[in-house]
């Protein structure tokens, strides 16, 4: 008890004494763009970025704004930057991605980086933060970059979702006119507002709590099947105890004619009241995965997820549903579910909107229907 009081007092003293200093853009941050990068740096503004000492660690509160130029030959659709304070420290690495872009050659565009990072206080000299390019995606799906964070796959999937959702809205406009487009926007805004959300805690390894979660049982996944999915989920289970689910394991089979190198499963949990929540994505754990046509393998993760709502209300998991949400072929092409599949499976009410749908509904809400119609004409 006394040590807790002492810790609290020391924490208070440390907080009062913590040195909180603005970051010097020249010495604190290093921005690495390759010489042949299709984006070039015009300026970097550190804004309210600050560094503060917290015990033996340094907390970097970054609010940077970079101005970049498209030096490439085609329109840019997405950019991912790696933001690194310390490679091995938990909380020392993050990434910032800007997607749903349409930046023509020679045009400049802003990129905000708003994230907190940790690094040890006593580290030899050098910049506190390094920002480097991980990838750029162009409108023809050509990708440039070191791809350390697998941003090629992510940016491509988001671009395919953007094309899918723009096409859907254009079809609605063509078939039902501005009123139909307006109804679609209102439907989407309603779904976004009413979408049930979960607070999720993820830890690697075993259960995060013990007896409080109750007895553990094996629960089977039910699967939603999409007719055009190149991979199908055959069977799967996870260990469930109260509001915790751990060690998911799903058997998959490549039913396409091409080898597959990445599969991701969407994981929905259902509580005892029958409410469904998007819990997490379950990606393939094996980075060397290469699933030949007809071949089977397993998606599995040694992690524990704990679910709650509104900060305290534990969600007792009663059932689980899975669906194939993303597939990358060995040749780099990516598959995502089409709009019809999502609608027919009633997934739209559970899933978050795509980044492009989120952007377009935001545009509609702020600038109105005519601005949205102009935007849809652009590409």
């Amino acid at each position, binding site marked *: 008890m006394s040590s807790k009081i002492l810790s609290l007092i020391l924490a208070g003293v440390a907080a009062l004494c913590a040195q909180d200093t603005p970051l010097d853009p020249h010495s604190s941050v290093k921005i690495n763009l390759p010489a042949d990068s299709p984006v070039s740096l015009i300026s970097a503004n550190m804004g309210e970025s600050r560094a503060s000492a917290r015990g033996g*660690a340094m907390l970097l509160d970054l609010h940077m704004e970079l101005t970049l130029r498209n030096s490439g030959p085609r329109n840019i659709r997405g950019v991912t930057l790696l933001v690194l304070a310390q490679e091995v420290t*938990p909380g020392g690495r993050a990434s910032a991605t800007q997607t749903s872009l349409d930046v023509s050659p020679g045009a400049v565009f802003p990129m905000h980086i708003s994230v907190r990072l940790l690094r040890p206080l006593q580290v030899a000299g050098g910049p506190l933060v390094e920002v480097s390019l991980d990838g750029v995606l162009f409108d023809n799906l050509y990708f440039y970059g070191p791809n350390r964070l697998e941003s090629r796959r992510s940016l491509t999937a988001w671009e395919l979702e953007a094309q899918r959702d723009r096409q859907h809205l254009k079809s609605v406009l063509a078939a039902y006119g501005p009123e139909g487009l307006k109804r679609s926007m209102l439907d989407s805004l309603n779904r976004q507002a009413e979408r049930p959300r979960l*607070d999720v805690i993820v830890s690697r390894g075993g259960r*995060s709590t013990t007896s409080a979660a109750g007895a553990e049982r094996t629960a089977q996944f039910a699967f939603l099947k999409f007719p055009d999915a190149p991979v199908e989920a055959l069977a799967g289970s996870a260990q469930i105890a109260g509001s915790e689910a751990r060690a998911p394991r799903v058997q998959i089979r490549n039913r396409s004619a091409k080898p597959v190198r990445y599969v991701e499963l969407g994981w929905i949990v259902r509580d005892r009241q029958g409410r469904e929540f998007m819990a997490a994505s379950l990606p393939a754990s094996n980075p060397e995965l290469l699933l030949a046509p007809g071949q089977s393998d397993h998606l599995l993760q040694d992690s524990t997820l704990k679910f709650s709502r509104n900060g305290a209300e534990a969600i007792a998991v009663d059932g689980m549903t899975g669906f194939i949400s993303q597939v990358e072929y060995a040749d780099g092409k990516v598959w995502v579910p089409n709009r019809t599949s999502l609608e027919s499976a009633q997934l739209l009410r559970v899933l978050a909107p795509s980044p492009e749908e989120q952007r377009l509904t935001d545009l509609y809400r702020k600038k109105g229907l005519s601005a949205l119609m102009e935007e849809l004409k652009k590409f």
Partner: protein
Amino acid sequence: MKHPGGETLALLAGGELGFLDRWFQRRHVSGCESCQREIEAFSDLRSAASELSELPEVGWGRLAAEMRANIRLGLAAGQCVRKEPASHEPRFLPAPRSLVACASLAALLVMALWIQRPLPGRRQAAQQNGIVLEATGNGIGLQEGGQRLILMHPGAKEVTYSVGAQGSMRARYVDAESGYVMINNVYVQ
């Protein structure tokens, strides 16, 4: 300058302090020679106590009983051989040197047992929680050893959080100024 208490320095020397406590105390100790000396002393004592505890047949309870018996025996033997004092009043206190020796040994034993005692609360919490990421309406946070630090709070109103079961979290929002979609990822490892 206020120095950490002996208990805290002992915990720091033994590597038993929690995540944030350790930061705070290391920050102070790195610039305080006095506390550094105390930590070294605790470390030496801990090493010595560890060596003692590795002796195969030492039972502290038995040893203490033997020591008490030996002390009583020594006192009794001393009574037998010493000359009768002029006064016949009984002596209730042992010799000062014996008293000091006993007190020192007792203090050593208590300190050794105290330093070597298990700390179930702290250790179990660290083992159970490990390093975890959490996504809530307030942002993405990192927890370690019961301590929590918010890593991402973009300040945008409509933030969509998504979780990767492999240990990553993503926050997505429409940037109010540029109108572009920003996606930030943080990772457990």
